């Protein structure tokens, strides 16, 4: 039986291979991009098939940004990584999986979309939270994940620090401010999505420090009758970066597709999808179109205030850094 069918089967396989290649990509990402990439992958697959005739299947993997980077280092075969912060991709680059200058390969620091940190409060804003200073008022309970395990949490922390620094001009004051802020935090979840669940579903806390897109998603999902978004006067420009993992795409022969995938993030369609998922688009035209959707916030970059990720990481989040000292007392 098998012998009779074998030539037919082999013929079929050769025929499909000759017609169109089916490429498979793995995108290793962080927690709050689930919805964004579910949307984006569909659009990319359609566009890619039209352009090249090849079909592409994209698998998504989500988790805490640092943990995801670690999986890639340990051998998870990611064609592309789309993580919460450059530091995590740097860690992969340091192990030789991609070129160290990866961040220069795509426009705008390899960050096709940006976000910022905003506050999510309960309907009617019962504690009257308008800006960062209000978070220190007594009786206000703040929800944010653990910066040690969550990339998003590091943005939260740095946003608070940057605000206090800008306002006072003194690192001393900023440190004191952040120290007091974490005294108001009753629970440190390990990831951004975990904190959202704690705040939204368990009803813990008065304010959630969240990615802007995560806050919009929560409002969309649970209704504007339950939550409100409060944009602080000053916040950080969060630039989640993307990169192709050289060693993996060269081994699998998927470089062309992987590069096309990331470039598509910068296309009009890609930018539109990012905006629809509440990420701030880079493309000026698309940004203009969605201007009304995002609050006007005075945004500073990590390079301006902290001298880049590596420096911020060693000073604040490494063992014995400022964050550890906050919890020593």
């Amino acid at each position, binding site marked *: 039986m098998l012998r009779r069918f074998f030539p037919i089967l082999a013929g079929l396989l050769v025929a499909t291979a000759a017609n169109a290649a089916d490429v498979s990509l793995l995108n290793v990402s962080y927690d709050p991009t689930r919805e964004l990439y579910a949307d984006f992958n569909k659009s990319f697959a359609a566009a890619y098939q039209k352009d090249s005739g090849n079909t592409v299947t994209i698998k998504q993997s989500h988790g805490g940004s640092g943990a995801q980077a670690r999986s890639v280092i340990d051998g998870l075969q990611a064609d592309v990584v789309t993580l919460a912060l450059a530091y995590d991709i740097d860690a992969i680059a340091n192990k030789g999986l991609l070129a160290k200058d990866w961040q220069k390969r795509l426009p705008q620091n390899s960050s096709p979309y940006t976000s910022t940190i905003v506050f999510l409060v309960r309907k009617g804003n019962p504690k009257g939270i308008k800006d960062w200073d209000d978070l220190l008022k007594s009786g206000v309970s703040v929800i944010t994940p653990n910066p040690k*395990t969550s990339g998003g949490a590091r943005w939260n922390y740095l946003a608070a620090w940057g605000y206090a620094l800008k306002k006072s001009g003194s690192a001393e004051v900023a440190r004191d401010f952040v120290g007091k802020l974490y005294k108001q935090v*009753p629970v440190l*979840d*390990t990831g951004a999505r*975990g904190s959202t669940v704690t705040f939204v579903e*368990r009803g813990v806390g008065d304010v959630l420090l969240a990615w802007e897109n995560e806050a919009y998603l929560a409002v969309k999902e649970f209704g504007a009758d339950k939550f409100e978004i409060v944009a602080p006067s000053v916040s950080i420009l969060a630039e989640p970066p993307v990169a192709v993992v050289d060693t993996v795409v060269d081994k699998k022969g998927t470089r062309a597709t992987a590069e096309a995938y990331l470039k598509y993030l910068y296309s009009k369609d890609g930018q539109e999808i990012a905006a629809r998922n509440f990420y701030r688009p880079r493309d000026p035209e698309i940004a203009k179109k969605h201007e009304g959707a995002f609050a006007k916030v005075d945004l500073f970059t990590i390079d301006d205030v902290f001298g880049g990720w590596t420096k911020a990481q060693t000073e604040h989040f490494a063992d014995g850094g400022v964050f550890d000292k906050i*919890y020593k007392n």
Partner: protein
Amino acid sequence: MTAVAQRRSLPGFGLTMGLTITWLSLMILIPLAGLFVKTAELSFAEFWSTVTAPRTLHALKISFGLAFAAACVNLVAGLVIVWALVRYRFPGRRIFDAIVDIPFALPTAVAGIALTTLFAQKGWLGAPLAALGIKVAFTPLGIFLAMIFIGIPFVVRTVQPVLLDLDTELEEAAECLGASRWQTIWRVILPSLTPALLTGFALAFARAVGEYGSVIFIAGNLPNVSEIAPLLIVIRLSEFRYADATAIAVVMLIFSFLIIFVLNRIQHWAQSRSLATA
């Protein structure tokens, strides 16, 4: 070792022993050796400062201390549950018997999420408790509860068969000889159950020490307050500090091994004693 020298009653000792050693090495010893190899990247001074850092010590204290307390609670509660299930007939007994296994079968993360939802300050149990001024979720008390939850079946399932097999004639004999009900329990029943109770205790304790999924959601994870040692290992890993992570793991491993070893010795002693008195 006279047993080996004598003619064995069952054949195949060489083969089974070979398989045992191979399997244990592949599945347990080699992975654990890897842990030590990775840790050996640290100098002894580095290792020592990692494992004696106040935060590490606190996390170890939380993990081992609360696991021990939870195992103690499970020892008593488990015994009561087994007693009721084995010695009495009541409606729904089989259902209760099945419920005991749920913590075994449930994915630990599900247990953690369920417990946290229940005990969060707006949860069904959390709200009334909060009104009394008791905070459970996001405190060490929450960790303690989660550890009780995942540990209870170990005590029940190790003691149950022993209690079922316990010869009722012994109790009858004790009563005939004039022992009171309490004397029968203290001097006849409990000694026979002690080895099984200790095994259950050791298993419940070991499980709680290493528990991550069910604890992580309810713990609150505040450093020096409610941070468990397994979370600290995960944190070290997220800092890409593998050797520091394995250093904490090695300490946990050694402690657990010592405790289980001691419990085993006690169990052995109890067994020989109960055999001697019987």
